[in-house]
């Protein structure tokens, strides 16, 4: 019976299709746009594996004139700077994501409890920043000076940890998917709200944790703005911040390396600047490009929940 219905529906769908020429036209448009999205990344990849001589002679090309991994070899050899920046990025991303997920879900859970007395107050606390904020100047002085986070990893971690958008997603999710009866019965069994939250609510909300966690992971990994505002010390720069410096001034890379001593100066003198620079772009993009197709569905579910009630 069910199968028969499916067949009938397919028939209808077939009948209700756009014509073949239109289909081809649409496909063509999407192919063009998809290529616009992919080709730039391929170009950078190609540059990163082209020998420095070929780049200087022929410029950037999609197909390397002379293949070479000297850019990567160079980055590996002088190690410390890239390794440190990678470490900062990784640490900030991991710590920030864990902290952010805990702060966001705890708030969302408290707001989702129908009988909680301060629910109204918390809703205002979350809502007001959605329509009003202190602006860059005031935020800059508060975070950098009043809270004393300038030139600390805290400046990279704390400001991005919570967003009202994510809190609202959590609240909506808990309201819709965690049955009241489950929480009531846990309470009858003598569980407090902490036990309920950490032992019952969070374990059954894994899709939500994945969504919020991924939003945060990408936000932290991609962040360069906080670094630009609050970080001056070379040792605390993330990969994105390092790339930012190097892109705006290719000399920044050689000078940073030259700082590493006499040996560094020698390396800096004959470094493959162009390919090394693009190699850093590839190192930054690679984890994302590999990861996001697998996590797409969590993003989509997050955006959808958010779209239901903003």
């Amino acid at each position, binding site marked *: 019976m069910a199968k028969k219905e499916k067949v009938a529906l397919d028939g209808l769908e077939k009948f209700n299709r756009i014509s073949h020429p239109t289909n081809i036209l649409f496909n063509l448009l999407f192919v063009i746009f998809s290529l616009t999205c992919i080709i*730039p990344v391929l170009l950078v990849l190609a540059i990163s594996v082209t020998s420095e001589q070929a780049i200087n002679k022929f410029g950037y090309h*999609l197909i390397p004139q002379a293949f070479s991994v000297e850019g990567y070899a160079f980055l590996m050899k002088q190690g410390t700077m890239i390794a440190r920046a990678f470490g900062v990025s990784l640490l900030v991303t991991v710590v920030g994501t864990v902290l952010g997920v805990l702060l966001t879900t705890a708030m969302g859970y408290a*707001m989702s409890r129908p*009988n909680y007395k301060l629910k109204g107050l918390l809703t205002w606390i979350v809502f007001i920043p959605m329509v009003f904020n*202190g602006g860059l100047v*005031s935020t800059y002085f508060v975070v950098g000076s*009043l809270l004393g986070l300038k030139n600390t990893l805290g400046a990279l971690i704390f400001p991005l940890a919570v967003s009202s958008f994510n809190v609202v997603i959590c609240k909506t999710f808990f309201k819709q998917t965690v049955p009241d009866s489950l929480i009531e019965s846990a309470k009858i069994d003598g569980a407090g709200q*902490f036990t309920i939250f950490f032992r019952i609510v969070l374990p059954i909300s894994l899709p939500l944790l994945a969504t919020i966690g991924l939003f945060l992971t990408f936000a932290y990994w991609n962040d360069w703005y906080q670094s630009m505002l609050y970080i001056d010390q070379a040792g605390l720069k993330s990969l994105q911040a390092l790339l930012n410096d190097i892109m705006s001034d290719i000399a920044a890379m050689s000078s940073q390396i030259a700082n590493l001593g006499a040996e560094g100066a020698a390396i800096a003198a004959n470094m493959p600047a162009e390919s090394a620079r693009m190699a850093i772009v590839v190192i930054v993009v690679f984890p994302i490009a590999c990861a996001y197709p697998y996590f797409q569905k969590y993003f989509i579910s997050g955006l*959808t929940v958010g779209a239901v009630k903003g």
Partner: protein
Amino acid sequence: MSKTSNPTGKVHKKRWDRDDTELSILALPTTVWYILFSFLPMVGIIIAFKDYKIQGSFVESMIRSEWCGFDNFMFLFRSNDIWIILRNTLGYNLLFIVLGIVLPVAATLMITMLHGKRLAKAYQTAMFMPYFLSWVVAAALVWAFLSTDKGLINMLFFADDHQQWYMKPEIWPYLLTFLNVWKGLGYGMVVYLATVTGIDRSLYEAAVIDGASIWQQVKSITLPLMKSVIIMMFIMAVGRIFYSDFGLFYQVPRQSATLNPVVQTLDVYVYNMLKLGTTSMASAAAFVQSVAGCITILAANALVRKIDPDSAMI
């Protein structure tokens, strides 16, 4: 706090109990975060009315700095730059709002009509990618195309006559608009696609049986059901009309002074002024952004509420 009315008829607890205490403790760290990182800066916005001089810590400086009324604003609006910057900010935003709704909606409708579902999925994945790249990375990608002596465009099309793209203000409005669409289209499609796939198929079946063409189905079924999401995206975009995508306008043009008249927006201006130490101008501009942003979002919402109460966000 006690005796809340209860329209549901459920028995309401009237007193503060253990649950409330525990939930408050759970919410406390996040509340502290909001106070420190959201509400303190809101209080700090009064800096716009002070002749701010650094004298010791931030709080000391704030207290010792003299009130100066609207001097900072006078100063700001007397400068010639600000009007160009406002024009850029609002102009780009209006363009981005229109394109940011029309193009993703059109792309969503088109992708749902494709015959090959697997191809559709592949396009979607490819087009979503730019959303996951930071503007620093995107700026590097643009550089690979536009750099004067090595860029791909010059290599392929201007081999004998290298063009200095970062010195040509006339191409940048188009380029920035293109990049905005490039980065946002995949994201917009995801949001709208979720709505379209959620539409009950039987509506379309009924329409087909009644002899509706595909365009008629789009016009009378799909678009009306997408309306509230479209309006929500619109309100959110309008609320940010005094803000801009900082990375797009700061990173991509590589701070080329020649491009300033066509690429500088309020965000970039505030940042540059702040970094230069011109706190008075920066704080006044930031204040305008915050207050005007707040007003526009509330106004947009009120307008929507008037026209179509169900779609209002707040």
